[in-house]
């Protein structure tokens, strides 16, 4: 009996060796590439797990890349050439979507880029929407959060049947603020209602004698207006939030692409 159990466990263990580990693309290359070294080991592993989960679940090619040295290229060019230059595809044949972040002081940008057939699903509107949602995190330097959110949004997009709208993540800070705002507004409205009801229960005496003013009896004998002085105050205008973004399309070594990016 013991022998049977031992053999069974060995066979089971052997079978487990053939279960694919979701850490790499079909080409065996990493799905998350942190060339800029901005993520900690824990963050890197978490992003890799999340990205792989989404990629396998929806059977998509999905890369997330950071870079701190564009080697003289623009961020968009570097991003669109990256898949071919790093062995993710044959010439012009990359099929997938990537999030690319450049922290190179020469050109700080992030892009969501769809290649070849993925351009049909990730339209300008979709890419812009994703970029909008993660903008605050990326602008403030919280790249881990921004990348995490990007992965979540790509997953939501496929879960929605490749349609907008994309659901916002729950911002717990915003929840607390919303609760406080709700409580204050509720207290004001509740107080106004109670005050209005109580007013009807009281005696309200008139304080003026308007109704006893003889109609037409007012005689304005003199009125003079003197200009005294003027004051001018000025306040700076707020800059509109969100740096200008833009969409573009073209062709690269990795294939035809449609790109939406934001400056940081």
């Amino acid at each position, binding site marked *: 009996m013991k022998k049977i159990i031992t053999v069974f466990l060995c066979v089971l263990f052997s079978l487990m060796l053939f279960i694919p580990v979701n850490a790499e693309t079909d080409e065996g290359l990493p799905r998350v590439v942190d060339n800029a070294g901005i993520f900690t080991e824990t963050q890197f592993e978490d992003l890799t797990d999340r990205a792989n989960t989404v990629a396998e679940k929806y059977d998509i090619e999905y890369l997330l890349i950071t870079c701190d040295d564009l080697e003289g290229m623009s961020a968009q060019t570097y991003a669109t050439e990256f898949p071919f230059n790093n062995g993710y595809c044959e010439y012009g044949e990359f099929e997938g979507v990537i999030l690319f972040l450049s922290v190179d002081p020469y050109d700080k940008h992030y892009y969501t880029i769809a290649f070849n057939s993925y351009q049909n699903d990730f339209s300008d509107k979709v890419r812009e929407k994703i970029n909008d949602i993660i903008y605050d995190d990326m602008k403030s330097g919280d790249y881990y959060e921004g990348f995490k959110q990007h992965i979540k949004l790509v997953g939501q997009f496929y879960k929605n049947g490749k349609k907008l709208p994309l659901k916002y993540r729950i911002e717990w800070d915003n929840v607390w603020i919303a609760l406080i705002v709700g409580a204050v507004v509720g207290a004001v409205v509740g107080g106004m209602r109670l005050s209005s009801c109580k007013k009807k229960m009281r*005696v309200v005496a008139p304080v003026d004698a308007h109704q006893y003013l003889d109609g037409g009896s007012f005689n304005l004998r*003199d009125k003079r207006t003197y200009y005294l002085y003027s004051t001018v105050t000025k306040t700076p205008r707020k800059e509109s939030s969100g740096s200008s973004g833009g969409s573009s399309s073209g062709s690269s070594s990795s294939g035809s692409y449609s790109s939406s990016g934001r400056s940081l």
Partner: protein
Amino acid sequence: MTDTTVSYKCPACGSPLTYNPNGKLVCAACSNEFDIEAVQKFAEAETEGKGFDWGDYKKEFSAGAEKLENTAVYVCKFCGAAIETDGTAAATHCPYCDNELILNDQLSGSVKPNAIIPFEIDKNAAMQAVKNHFKGKVLLPKDFASNHKLSKITGVYVPFWLFDSRIDGNANINAKNIRYYSDSKYNYTETQHYLVTVDGAMKFSKIPVDGSEKMDDDLMDALEPFDYSSLKEFNPAFLSGFLADRFDEDPDESLPRASDRMETSARQVFLDCASEFDTASIKSSNFSLVDPSVKYALLPVYLLNLSYKEQNYRFAVNGQTGKVVGELPISKFKSFIQFGSFFAGAAAIAGIIAYFVMGW
């Protein structure tokens, strides 16, 4: 040696002004320039404003006027109210404190009024008006509305002083116009300050103030308005079937209430003269009385006293228009329900909107 120096203060910041050869007064602190006439007027306005002056107060009503005869006077042994009737009304309880009245034929009749507004609604209509007054009051305790004794409502002619006067006066008004504009870098707010002086006169007629110490002044004021087209010369026949109260506050005691109301209205009328400005407020004002007079009149009021949880609640019904006034008790439980339901609804809606707005 007499000091003949004259100094003016800056209307904007209060610093001393100096004369500039360009003909204007200049403030070194805030760099504003002013016309001389405007500054002089501003300075005068600072010292004006003595308030309301009644001047020589003239009474048409005289304390030695004709007295009422052939009346029965009932006295309340608890509150001291002296209720008068021509003898046809059965005065069994005091309309003020609801206690028993006793007939006292030792008291003489009161002074004859100048005028009276006869009752135009009967007792049943008054009771119905009170019932209608209770409806729709969401905070009213349920048992208050159901446990009432409306039949005790009593019609009483309440003594009022009716004040007439012409008001002469002037006012200095601080007025502003505000303009907003912007360029690519800044938003600007320009405020222009003006002084407006107004001089005029207006007439007030028959401002009523009750002459009974036992009547709550706010309650009687809240019964207004009375339609004075029904005001008639006094005739004892109008008292038939009703009670009449005597005045125990002479016109001088009632005068401040009338003058306060006249002043409030006069200030508003003058303020409306600066309506072309964005904002305006009275800086100072002076009023004086011209040809004031007062008449003594009896006005019709139904009175009702209700007890609830050891507290007395008095209601008054305008015996001409049927308007009902009176403080009502408030249920704490119903107050909580009203506040809570609106709080919950508004908080939920506001919270959800706030969350999604922050998420944009």
